[in-house]
C-alpha cells in the first residue's frame, strides 16, 4: 500500500514537472454561468491538464475582473458599459466581445392566472406601481405581486433598459437575488409577475406574450421577442489563434458547443 502511494506520488511529481499546467480563469455573470460551466466541464475532459475555474459573481464583477487582469474571460449577460471600457483600457486591457448565445428575458405569471399577454407599456406600468391589480389588465380582481431581480443583476439591467426604459420601479417591488428564486416566488404566489431567463421556463410558471410575441427559440434567436439579449464572453484583445482562450471562445460554434448551449436552455446563434 505504502509503496503504491510513494510510486504514485513520484509519478505525479514527474508528470507534473514535465507538463506545464495551463490555467483558464473565467469570471462574471450568473446567467452565463451555466454555459461557462458546461464548456469548462467539456474542456476538462478533453484537456485533462487544463486548470479551469468558473466564478459566478455577476456581470459587473466580470468586467472589473477582466480590467484588473484577474481573469482570462469575463462572462457577461449585457454589453460592457462605457465606464467599464474606459477602466479596462486605462489598465491596458482591450475588451473584445464574443456573442455565444441569445437569452430571452421571459415575463412569467402564476399558471392559474388567465392573463396571457401584456404589452411592454403595461408591464412597465405594473413595475412602476401604476397598475396594481390584475383586473386593470383584463385579469381577475387580485393585487399584483411584482417580483424583480435585484438591481445588481444583468437580467435586471436588460429588463430595466428594454421594458422599463429606465423609468424607476415602484416601492412595492420585491427583489430576489437569483433566477431560481424568482421562479420559486412566481410558482408559489397566485398574484405574482416576474421575469426569468428562458432557461428557467417550465410548466410551473406561465410565460406570457409580450407585445403579442411568445418567447420561444425562434422569436428570441431572431430578435423578434422584445426582451431578447445576447450573452457575451469578453476577452483581452482577440484571443491568439490556437490558444486555450481562443478555443474556449470559439467552442460555441461547434456542434458540441451548440448542443451544450441548448441543453442549458439558451438559444444558440448557429444553425446546424
Amino acid at each position, binding site marked *: 500500500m505504502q509503496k503504491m502511494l510513494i510510486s504514485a506520488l513520484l509519478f505525479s511529481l514527474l508528470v507534473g514537472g514535465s507538463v506545464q499546467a495551463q490555467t483558464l480563469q473565467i469570471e462574471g455573470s450568473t446567467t452565463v454561468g451555466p454555459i461557462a460551466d458546461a464548456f469548462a466541464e467539456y474542456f476538462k475532459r478533453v484537456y485533462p491538464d487544463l486548470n479551469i475555474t468558473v466564478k459566478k459573481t455577476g456581470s459587473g464583477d466580470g468586467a472589473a475582473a477582466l480590467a484588473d487582469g484577474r481573469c482570462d474571460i469575463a462572462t457577461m449577460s449585457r454589453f460592457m458599459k462605457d465606464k467599464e471600457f474606459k477602466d479596462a483600457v486605462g489598465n491596458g486591457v482591450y475588451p473584445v466581445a464574443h456573442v455565444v448565445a441569445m437569452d430571452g428575458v421571459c415575463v412569467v405569471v402564476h399558471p392559474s392566472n388567465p392573463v396571457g399577454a401584456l404589452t411592454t407599456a403595461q408591464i412597465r406600468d405594473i413595475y412602476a406601481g401604476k397598475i396594481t391589480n390584475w383586473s386593470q389588465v383584463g385579469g381577475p380582481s387580485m393585487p399584483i405581486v411584482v417580483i424583480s431581480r435585484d438591481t*445588481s443583476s444583468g437580467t435586471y439591467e436588460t429588463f430595466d433598459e428594454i421594458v422599463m426604459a*429606465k423609468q424607476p420601479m415602484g416601492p*412595492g*417591488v420585491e*427583489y*430576489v437575488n437569483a433566477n431560481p428564486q424568482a421562479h*420559486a*416566488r412566481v410558482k408559489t*404566489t397566485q398574484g405574482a409577475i416576474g421575469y426569468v431567463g428562458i432557461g428557467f421556463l417550465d410548466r410551473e410558471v406561465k410565460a406570457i406574450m409580450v407585445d403579442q410575441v411568445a418567447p420561444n427559440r425562434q422569436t428570441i434567436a431572431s430578435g423578434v421577442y422584445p426582451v431578447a439579449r445576447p450573452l457575451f464572453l469578453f476577452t483581452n484583445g482577440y484571443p491568439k489563434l490556437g490558444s486555450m482562450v481562443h478555443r474556449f471562445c470559439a467552442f460555441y460554434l461547434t456542434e458540441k458547443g451548440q448542443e451544450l448551449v441548448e441543453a442549458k436552455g439558451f438559444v444558440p446563434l448557429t444553425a446546424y
Partner: protein
Amino acid sequence: MESRGLTLTLGPSDDRRRPLALTPREDLLGFIGSYLGRAVLFLITGTSVLAVLLILLFVILRSVPFLRDFGVGEFLTSRAWRPTADEPVFGALTLIVGSLYVSIAALLFAVPVGILAAVFLSDIVSWKIRNVAKPVVEILAAIPSVAYGFFAVLVLAPWMQRRFGFSTGTNALNASVILAIMALPTIISVAEDAISALGRELREASYSLGATRLETMTKVVIPAAHSGIIAAVVLGMMRAIGETMVVWMASGNATQIPHPWWDLSQSIRTMTATIAGEMGEAPEGGAHRSALFAVGVVLLLMTFVLNIVSEYFLSRAKKAAGKS
C-alpha cells in the same frame, strides 16, 4: 496501528507540596514568567480590540466621501433607494425603518415566549429536564440562518398566502417570525441565567407570606430579575437586527415603509439585506459602494448603542445577583 491513550493526571499535582517561599532563582523565573504571560495576554487582547477599531475606522472612512457629497440629511430622510438609476438616489430611511420594523416585531413574538420558557426552565421543571432542555434550545442558535431562510421561502411563505390570504408570503411577518425563532435561544438562555441566579430565599420568603406560585413568579421573581431579562431582550434584538441571510430571503426586499404601519403582510427591506445583496456588483470606487458602507455605519452605530444598553443591564443583573 497502535494507539496509545494520553495519560492524564487528575487531582492535586505535586505543586501542592512545594513550600510557599520561593528560592531567589525561582522568584526571578516566576517574575519573568508572569510578565511574559501578561505581555502575551495583552498582545492577544490588544489585537482583538485593534481589529474592532480598524473595522470601525475602515467602514467609517469608506462612507465619508459619499456622505459629504450626498448629504447626511438626505441619506437619512429620503425614502427612494435607486442605486443603479442614471441619476442614483440613496435614501436609506426605508432600510433603517425596515430593520427596526422586523426586529421589533420579532421581539414582540419572541419576548413573551422567551420569558415564559425561561421561567419554565428555571422554576418549574426539574433540574434533570432543564439540563437537557436548555442545551437543546441553545442548539436552535446553531442552525445556519440560510436553512431558516429556505424554510421561510419554501414552507412558511406559501403557507401564509394560503392560510391568511396574503398577496405575498415573503413579507415583514415572515421575516419577523423566523427572526423571533432565531432570537429565542439567546433570550431564553440569558433570561434563564438571570432568573436562576436569584437566591432561594427570595422565593421562600414569598411562599411563606402565602403567595401562590403564579404570584411569586409575576410579582417577585420576574421583577427581581428584570435587569437580566432586559439584557436578554436587548441581546435578542441585536441578533435580530444584525441577521442578514434570513431577512434577505424572507422579507421580500421591497423598499417601502408599510402603509398602514401595522400591516405586517407587506414586504420590507432591511439594511443588512441591502448590503449583502448589492455589495457584489456595486463597482469599487463608485457612489453605490460607499452608500452601502454608509448603511453599514448606521447599522454599526445601532448595534453599538444596543450593546452598551445590554452591557449596562447585564452588569446591573450581576450586581443584583451578587447582593441576594
